[in-house]
């Protein structure tokens, strides 16, 4: 296992997760501290440091009202033209949601994936057109 880890750093084979990320595609990034980014991926490395362009950042905060003890979800958004993201903070990277898939139920979503091609390039091309 230790040998594998050392060999993985210089080369990325097709079987590794990093090989599935494509450049110049719009992506959704979930980060620590309840932050989300949507932008165009210009560059990345093995640490998942990223250069994103045309980014929309969303910060979600939960406030608790003192009287009623209800949780209020607040989110703030802003746009950034060009952004460097440190890989430490990244949790998840995915293609951005499309209008089609967001409101489907679990079963509907699974059959959508089955009937649609599961080829990664096709999914990314589809998302690119919808963005």
């Amino acid at each position, binding site marked *: 296992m230790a040998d594998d*880890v050392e060999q993985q750093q210089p080369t990325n084979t097709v079987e590794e*997760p990093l090989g599935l990320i494509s450049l110049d595609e719009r992506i959704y990034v979930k980060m620590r501290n309840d932050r989300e980014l949507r932008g165009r991926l210009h560059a990345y490395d093995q640490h998942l440091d990223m250069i994103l362009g045309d980014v929309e950042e969303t910060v979600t905060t939960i406030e608790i009202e003192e009287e009623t003890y209800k949780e209020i979800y607040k989110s703030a958004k802003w746009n950034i033209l060009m952004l460097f993201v440190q890989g430490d903070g990244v*949790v998840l*990277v*995915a293609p951005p*949601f499309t209008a089609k898939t967001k409101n489907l139920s679990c079963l509907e*979503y699974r059959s959508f994936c089955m009937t649609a091609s599961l080829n990664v390039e096709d999914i990314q091309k589809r998302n690119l057109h919808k963005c």
Partner: protein
Amino acid sequence: FLIRIVKMSLRKQTPSDFLKQIIGRPVVVKLNSGVDYRGVLACLDGYMNIALEQTEEYVNGQLKNKYGDAFIRGNNVLYISTQKRR
């Protein structure tokens, strides 16, 4: 399938053998933050970076989001477990 798993567990296995076996299976990935991701394991590497397909995100047991493909950074992963498809 169950018999095969029992036989496998009787032999000595390293974690990397387990990881090779479960590629292509539906898995549950739990993160340090407590968020749960269920999907089909596409691939993973020695850092526990994970690529999933047909991913569903559960927060506090509630389904929050669905992702066609999801790449999860390995340092956030608490565990990877196989699951029976519902």
